[in-house]
């Protein structure tokens, strides 16, 4: 057997401080309270740094800084705002290796993904929206579309820097200023981004980063000085935010959970479908809101496809995320691991058949093997609830109509996959699916020019493309 020797990326390239304050008004400031928490490497449980958890007073200070910066930033010619964003994009490219390592250390995702997916997309997103800053009059929102003011943005832990880019780039391009709260388990790249803002000489207060958990986020979205709230995370929290914003004039966009169906028809390009299924659910350990967590396969090819899928899963390499050959990294936190375990146990208890490839699990850190459930019924929890982990539920169907019916039979509507070589069937299926993104003969592709967002309980508003501007303009 051809054993690949370990090929670890060097972590010397990153310089993590022992302790971080809050980034407010262009400066590192100490929080008013004493609330500090450790952020750990989920692959080793090693403490990486201590970060402040901002309280209401800290959030207020950040919103004030953003409010103060707004007149200057919004009045600046778009071409000048663009140049700041281009600068940021370039710095991200220049520091991409360092940022990829930092992301992997804090998040647990394989360095290959951080390096080849996250960071290129982060830079591309800033480049893309930089270009919009002086072209807003042509975006279809009126001759002189105005920014909203201060945007309060709360992002998740699965793609920390990429979600930051999705939030900050369009907000700034449109002339808003922002207060952003990274997820409590993955603050480090957001804090590194604060440094990048300084490096780019972005005017103070245009970007403010406040670290913390749910309470910090609640203080931010409920702050009266915030004009726009953008949230990516669970549907449960999205609901709370939507409710708490009732009666305010705050504009809200939400990118929430999903339970995407990946539909494989009998005439699919099967080898690529297998890759698409793997990429759909095991990319980023399945910590992906648009993950293809429900495989719907036509009964006539189910056995053949499952055999090929299992064979392919046998080649996945789980382990040290810093190894460039790792395919499956660590689960982001002990809490998330517990949730995945609880849901998979319910899958077994409800009668679905569980399978994982032979897969050694490291002694330390949070890990979960790639897992496939067959014999899953629509009524099982693992077919309905978002697991947000490397767990695939396999269901079968007989006709295209049944496939669509099952795919749409969920409160979510973020994404879906369709695999067929027949163009008319693809377009028919895509048109019937109630989901914001449909990948046909591919899965989990992202691009700054391509609008992303959900139907139904997967949220509202779009990120990316011209559509993504609407969330940050008074239209």
């Amino acid at each position, binding site marked *: *057997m*051809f054993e*690949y*020797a370990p090929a670890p990326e060097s972590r010397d390239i990153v310089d993590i401080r022992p302790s971080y304050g809050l980034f407010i008004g262009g400066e590192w400031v100490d929080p008013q309270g004493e609330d500090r928490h450790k952020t750990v490497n989920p692959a080793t449980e090693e403490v990486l740094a201590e970060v402040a958890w901002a309280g209401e007073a800290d959030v207020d200070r950040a919103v004030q800084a953003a409010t103060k910066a707004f007149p200057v930033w919004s009045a600046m010619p778009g071409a000048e705002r663009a140049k700041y964003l281009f600068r940021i994009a370039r710095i991200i490219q220049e520091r991409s290796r360092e940022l990829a390592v930092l992301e992997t250390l804090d998040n647990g995702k394989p360095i290959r993904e951080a390096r080849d997916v996250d960071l290129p997309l982060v830079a591309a997103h800033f480049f893309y929206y930089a270009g919009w800053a002086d072209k807003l009059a042509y975006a279809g929102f009126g001759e002189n579309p105005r920014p909203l003011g201060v945007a309060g943005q709360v992002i998740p832990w699965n793609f920390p820097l990429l979600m930051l880019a999705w939030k900050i780039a369009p907000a700034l391009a449109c002339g808003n200023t922002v207060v952003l709260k990274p997820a409590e388990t993955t603050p480090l790249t957001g804090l590194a981004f604060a440094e990048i803002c300084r490096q780019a000489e972005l005017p103070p207060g245009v970007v403010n980063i406040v670290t913390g958990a749910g309470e910090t986020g609640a203080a931010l979205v409920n702050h009266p000085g915030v004009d726009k709230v953008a949230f990516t995370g669970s549907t449960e929290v999205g609901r709370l935010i939507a409710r708490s914003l009732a009666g305010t004039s705050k504009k809200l966009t939400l990118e929430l959970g999903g339970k995407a169906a990946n539909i494989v028809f009998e005439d*699919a*390009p099967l080898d*690529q479908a297998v890759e698409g299924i793997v990429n759909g659910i095991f990319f980023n350990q399945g910590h992906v809101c648009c993950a293809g967590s429900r495989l719907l396969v036509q009964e006539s090819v189910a056995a053949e496809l499952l055999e090929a899928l299992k064979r392919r899963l046998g080649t996945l390499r789980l382990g040290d995320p810093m190894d460039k050959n790792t395919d499956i990294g660590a689960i982001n936190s002990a809490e998330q691991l517990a949730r995945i375990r609880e849901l998979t146990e319910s899958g077994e208890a409800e009668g679905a058949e569980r399978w994982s490839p032979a897969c050694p699990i490291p002694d330390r850190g949070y890990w979960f093997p790639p897992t496939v459930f067959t014999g899953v019924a629509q009524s099982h929890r693992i077919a309905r609830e978002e697991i947000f982990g490397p767990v695939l539920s396999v269901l079968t169907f007989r006709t295209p109509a049944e496939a669509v019916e099952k795919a749409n039979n969920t409160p979510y509507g973020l994404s879906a996959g369709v695999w067929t070589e027949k163009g008319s069937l693809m377009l028919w299926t895509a048109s019937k699916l109630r989901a914001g993104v449909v990948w046909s*003969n591919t899965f989990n592709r992202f691009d700054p020019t391509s609008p992303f967002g959900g139907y139904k309980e997967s949220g509202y508003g779009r990120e990316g493309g011209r559509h993504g501007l609407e969330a940050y303009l008074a239209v």
Partner: protein
Amino acid sequence: MTTPLAAAKFDGVASSPSTLRAFLHGLPGVDRVGADARAAMLGTRSIKTTAKKQAIDTAIAMVDLTTLEGADTPGKVRAMCAKAVRPDPTDASVPPVAAVCVYPDLVATAVEALAGSGVKVASVATSFPSGRSSLEVKTAETRLAVAAGAAEIDMVIDRGAFLAGDYLKVYEEIVATKEACGEAHLKVILETGELATYDNVRRASWLAMIAGADFIKTSTGKVSPAATLPVTLVMLEAVRDFLAVTGRKVGVKPAGGIRTTKDAIKYLVLVNETAGPDWLHPDWFRLGASSLLNDLLMQRQKMATGRYAGPDYFTLD
């Protein structure tokens, strides 16, 4: 002649043009973008230290050292054979290559030069590279090459017939050539650069395998593009699936355009993760190349000495 299990399994398939066509067009399609992406991803595997040493020696042992020029002479072939047996005269630990590959008229020269070395002689045949001749000429050429001592025959398929949809003609030529080979191994060159689509590559692979190919090979080296990672991926999927269906194992040989150690290692990773480690052996995977060998030797020396190697220190044969 032994009837392979494969032939029994596909008995009816080649009984008429329409059954053969139905079978080949019934194979699952290949999505080009997805196949390209998978090959590119495997190309990012990072092979270092001990794994790289092992990979380099494995790759050397898989090389079909090739010269297929109009200007080939007995002298040129003898020099290449010497290199094949002892790739690095300064280092006896370097394994010999798998085979040398020459035109039919130079087979006897190569056989003589390689006598007792264990390095095999492969000959192209069937009016290589275009294949544009009659079946009689093609089988006669094959028989002559085998009679001259070739242990392996690299035939070309009739791409014109394939593209015209005359799959049965292609099939029958392969069957006839296989018969002409006798005990010699048959490698069937698909010339994937002319087949243009991955769907065609998959169909041609199956066509060759059910007709009795021992190896399927990408290219003559005379058409661009020659071997590519995704085309080889599609062919590796075919041999993997063919084994599962028939129990018969077929080898794969990418040829042409593989020049660097980095390229060669990418192919080995592709084999490892597609067909599986069982194919990581010269009996089942070959690299058709000429200049690749020196790059493998240079990388090998760099790993041994820690210094970058220079071309002046490796023989040009």
